[in-house]
């Protein structure tokens, strides 16, 4: 049932198409016929007129006598003589010279009319064949183009997005070229989408592997601790120590799970970054407030410098997640710094981005690790890093969040000069809305 319906739908437009095409040919034929008929009529009319003129001249001569002939000829040539020579005509008629086919001029006239008709008929036929064959060629070309397109679409369904047919197509038809261009773009889009999908699957897979790997170590540690605790031949002191050990392991596990929840939400796209115009200064202050206590504990002061007076600066960003990103950087700065040091934050308006520099006086990062610290679950190799608790997720998340905003985070050696510590540079685009204001 469905098939027949489809078939009907498929056939209908093509039939209408042929009808329309035939009508166009008919129009061409009629127009050609009219042109030829008009031309023939004109030619024949001219021939008949010249025949009549000849007869009239002859009639004039029949009417005149003797030496007046010369005089008459002169008058005729000068156009002064009117062709009203009924008498002469009558004489010729009475001799039977004016009957059709009975004189030389009449025969010639007939022959010429015949030739005109024959020639124009031949020309008309030639014209007709030209019209038909060119329309056929046009139809054939169109059919070929459609076949090409069909082939491409067929390939698309087989997930082959290379446009070989494009190379075959040599025509200069702009509309056809447009269609091919659009198809090419569509193909590219489909390829890209497919690849994105595959990449997403791949990241999820590796994420699961990474998470299970990351959880194994603390869980194994906890298990060992508990097993030791369960042996009853421990002294009070030892028991207390292992209880403390367990507590620490659990704490680590807790921090890890909350980090993992964040990261898996981010990776699986459960977190949608919702960019809204908001005051970036407030976001930064919120981030500072969240780490303030930790800084206080270590007597680390957080200094904030503006290069110029900002007032308020509205930037398109997701307040919650940008805050999270900034917290991660600030927490690191505090975590890896000695007591009684300074973390300074600078805000600079650049051309397309707001630049936030966060500088600490901590342990610093070796140049070779600049690139690695933003990788998921990467932790520094130095002794200080190994002794500090951390999951290796914070900076990774920060980079992801800022990347989603079209911004970036890097460690800078240049801004830092020769001092101890490190400087993180955050770049956030103003977003098109506020860009025009600048």
């Amino acid at each position, binding site marked *: 049932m469905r098939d027949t319906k489809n078939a009907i739908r498929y056939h209908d437009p093509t039939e209408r198409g042929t009808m329309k095409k035939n009508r166009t040919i008919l129009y061409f034929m009629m127009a050609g016929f009219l042109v030829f008929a008009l031309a023939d009529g004109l030619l024949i009319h001219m021939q008949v007129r010249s025949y009549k003129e000849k007869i009239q001249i002859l009639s004039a001569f029949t009417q005149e006598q003797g030496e007046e002939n010369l005089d008459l000829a002169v008058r005729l040539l000068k156009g002064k003589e009117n062709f009203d020579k009924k008498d002469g005509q009558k004489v010729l008629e009475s001799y039977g010279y004016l009957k059709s086919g009975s004189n030389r001029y009449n025969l010639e006239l007939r022959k010429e009319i015949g030739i005109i008709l024959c020639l124009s008929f031949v020309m008309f036929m030639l014209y007709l064949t030209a019209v038909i064959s060119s329309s056929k060629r046009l139809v054939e070309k169109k059919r070929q183009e459609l076949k090409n397109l069909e082939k491409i679409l067929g390939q698309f369904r087989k997930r082959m997005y290379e446009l070989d047919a494009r190379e075959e197509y040599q025509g200069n038809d*702009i509309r056809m070229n447009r269609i091919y*261009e659009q198809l090419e773009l569509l193909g*590219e889009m489909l390829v*890209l989408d497919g*690849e994105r999908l*595959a*990449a997403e699957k791949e990241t999820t897979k590796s994420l699961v592997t990474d998470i299970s790997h990351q959880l194994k170590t603390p869980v194994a540690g906890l298990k060992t601790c508990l097993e030791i605790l369960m042996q009853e031949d421990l002294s009070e002191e030892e028991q207390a120590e292992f209880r403390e050990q367990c507590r620490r392991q659990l704490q680590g596990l807790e921090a890890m799970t909350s980090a993992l929840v964040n990261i898996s939400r981010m990776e699986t796209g459960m977190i949608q970054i919702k960019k809204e115009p908001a005051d970036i200064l407030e976001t930064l202050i919120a981030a500072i407030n969240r780490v303030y206590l930790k800084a206080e504990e270590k007597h680390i002061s957080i200094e904030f410098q503006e290069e110029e007076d900002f007032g308020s600066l509205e930037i398109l960003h997701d307040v919650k997640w940008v805050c999270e990103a900034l917290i991660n950087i600030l927490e690191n700065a505090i975590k890896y710094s000695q007591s009684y040091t300074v973390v300074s934050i600078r805000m*600079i308006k*650049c*051309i*397309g*981005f707001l*630049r936030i520099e966060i500088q600490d006086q901590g342990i610093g990062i070796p*140049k*070779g690790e*600049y*690139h*690695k610290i*933003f990788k998921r679950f990467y932790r520094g190799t130095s002794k200080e890093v190994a002794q500090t608790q951390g999951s290796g997720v914070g900076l990774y998340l920060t980079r992801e969040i800022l990347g989603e905003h*079209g*911004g*970036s985070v*890097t*460690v*800078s*050696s*240049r*801004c830092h000069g020769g001092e101890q510590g490190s400087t993180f*540079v955050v*770049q956030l*685009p103003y977003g*098109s809305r506020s*860009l*025009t204001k600048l």
Partner: protein
Amino acid sequence: METILKTENLCKYYGKGENQVRAVRSANLAIKKGEFTAIVGKSGSGKSTLLHLLGGLDYPTNGKVWVKEKDIFSMKEEELAIFRRRKIGFVFQAFNLVSSINVWENIALPLGLDGKEADEVFVRDIINTLGITDKIYNLPNTLSGGQQQRVAIARALASRPDIILADEPTGNLDSRTSDEVVTLLKTSSQKYGQTVVMITHDEDIAQIANRILVIEDGKVVEQG
């Protein structure tokens, strides 16, 4: 993901005998589609030579380069020129903009060379992404270095090449502008699904990449 750019035992030597300089020594690399790769090296390490070989701007002494599974040096010169124009976009340190025509024309110019009509919507989108919308009627000389480089990036993106090769794109820019331009290059190439190979001597700049390769005395090695 599919490998879009691959080299096999790629070598480029200059001179002969004792004076021979081995600019690139048997480089084997494979770059995946959509990747942003930075090749870091000091000046004289052979990094520019490598990039020229990747882009088919120079012929190797030995070895092969495949772009999209096509051996580019097996092509005739004219064929290679067309292939390069369609598949590869270049961004240079010196911007290389045409100074007598305005920004819009600079961006649309390479499209005209290929007989393509400029897809105005697409080009405008690129221009917006790069934040040079209000500069399109300016002449290049009236723009700052950072703006000029953004125009050059827009030009490279506009012809929808599969690969963008950037040779020290921030070489002439101050550090803040460098950070901005590189971030834009990354954002825009990701948006349009293009693969970028960027050459730089600056490790700060290289951090933005998904992957860093180090070139030293013509040898290319992966950095962790």
